[in-house]
């Protein structure tokens, strides 16, 4: 995979299983996961982005259209995150990697 087998050591060397931290092994994938999950939350948490009547989509005020349309978007983001996490599971060193 993308990350090399000489990726830096995981932070917890003392863990019983000696599993290399998947986060350390795949830094870019891990960062992408964090960004995607945060974005999916912020997209509805920051109310000012969508608390408006215009532009209307058909007869629907923007606020209501946005909330409903955002649901599948957030679902797809989580689906992508789950796929990315599967990449994390593929260990860079060929050992038995742990998820996440």
């Amino acid at each position: 995979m993308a990350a090399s087998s000489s990726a830096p050591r995981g932070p917890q060397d003392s863990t019983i299983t000696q599993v290399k931290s998947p986060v350390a092994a795949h830094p870019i994938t891990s960062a992408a996961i964090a960004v995607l999950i945060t974005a999916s939350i912020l997209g509805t948490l920051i109310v000012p982005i969508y608390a408006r009547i215009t532009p209307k989509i058909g007869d629907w005020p923007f606020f209501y259209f946005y909330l409903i349309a955002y649901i599948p978007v957030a679902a797809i983001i989580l689906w992508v995150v789950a796929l990315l996490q599967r990449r994390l599971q593929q260990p860079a060193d060929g050992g038995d990697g742990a998820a996440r």
Partner: protein
Amino acid sequence: MSHVNATTFTIVVILFLFVTFIGFAAAHWRRADDMMHLNEWGLGGRGFGTFITWFLLGGDLYTAYTFIAVPALVFGAGSIGFFAVSYTIMAFPVAFIFLPRLWSICRVHNYVTPADFIRGRYGSRGMSLAMAFTGILALMPYIALQLVGIQSVLTVMGVGTSSNNTFIQDLPLVIAFLVLAIFTYVSGLRAPAAISFVKDTLIYVFVLVAVFYIPTRLGGWGHIFGTAQHHFTSINPETHKPYGTFIPTQHAVGSTQLDFASLALGSAMALFLYPHIVTGALASKRRKYIKRNMSLLPAYSILLGLIALFGYMAITDPVTAANVKKSGNAQLAVPYLFQHMFPPWFAGIAFAGIIIGALVPAAIMAIAAANLFTRNIFKEFFKPDASPVLETKMSQWASLVVKIGALLFAIELPHTFSINLQLLGGVWILQVFPMLVGGLYTRWFHRWALLAGWLAGMLYGTIAAYNVKNATTSHWASSSDIVFGHTVYIGLTALVINAVVATLLTLVFKATKAPEGTDETLPHQYTADPEDLPAPAPAGVGLGTAAD
């Protein structure tokens, strides 16, 4: 029962009998050799796949009360009711972060309840008792509210209301609930899992039909939104303020954007802490099924968004609006809307969907509360050597007691009381966030500090909610109050206090070297995905003999 529509009534009764049959038959579904074990009765064998988990969690998360209360809030106050849509969007990314870890650790250690995990993680009976207590406390009014949902449908159907005898009035509700209690006793979690297929099919059908059909009767979406906007910007002569808000505002009129966002975030964080949701998640067979469901379950959120719009449809339809006004109960908005808009047979399907939609989560909640009582109170404090058979029997009986308690709750107390308690339930359950979700990631927090933080959050939340008043009520008026000049969800404020207390006291306890307690979990177990259940923990005595 003079005003009862025979067609509607017959369809509701037939569908109810159908799910009763399924509820009892479910005892034989995916049957295990030894049913007298909490993994079987209380978690359906811990073997549900993606598909069943989707139906079970969907039936669990989106309760009949949601279908009644969210549009009622939209009907009464406008856009603030849509916080529910925002919160069901956020709930899944939030749960995606911690729920797989909770599943893994509970699977590896055979934990049945979230309090089992806390006991194992911190080695603290006090904390596991706090978790069990909070869980049961938050669940009781929630179950009662499912009954309130059933009652609002029965009221609009005219069942029982024509009699002045309170016994006769409540009889249909009592019957429905006794049936529920008995099949839960017999089949355990398998019953709501099987029934949720029927429930969700009915609900998807009636919501989609309603969303496409009702606007054609009411002059289109433009007219619906226009009427709602006009209504919520006009001034209520009694309070001299607008009736509500059509779009969350930045000014201090009605609901503000901060109120909207904090309610949504707090509820999203609380949702997957509820013991009945944890129960539904733990019944899943694999870790990946949980993750997959985090992107599949939002399908129900779309449904919820459409259901919320029923509130605006009820405002637009003059007959429904007049009926609701006459009854003085906004909870009746959706049932009245369906009764007026749909032909009797289809109204019957919709009403049956709501009633069955109450039974599924009520059953899971009762099971979750019963498991908490059995594992973390009865076994922990009274009978440490209880066998799996005794545990299961205890849970079965506890589920009956919980349901009868909820029934009395719903019949005896005024409805606004149970609604307030349910709002408080959200505030309460959020206070286990540091110990439960925090504990999934770190043992840095000291167990006594977490307990103190929990207590501080519970006290602040309860007192703050008690003191909220508005024009019509002096207490429990809403679940938001004013902090530093902003209206914020009480649960979130209480959680901040909780976390601050826990952090500060952790520093103190660490400095004084207070005992940390033993941790029986290991780091890699939080990401494990064992295919097979671990062997049941040896309980010492009285292992059940396998029948058949």
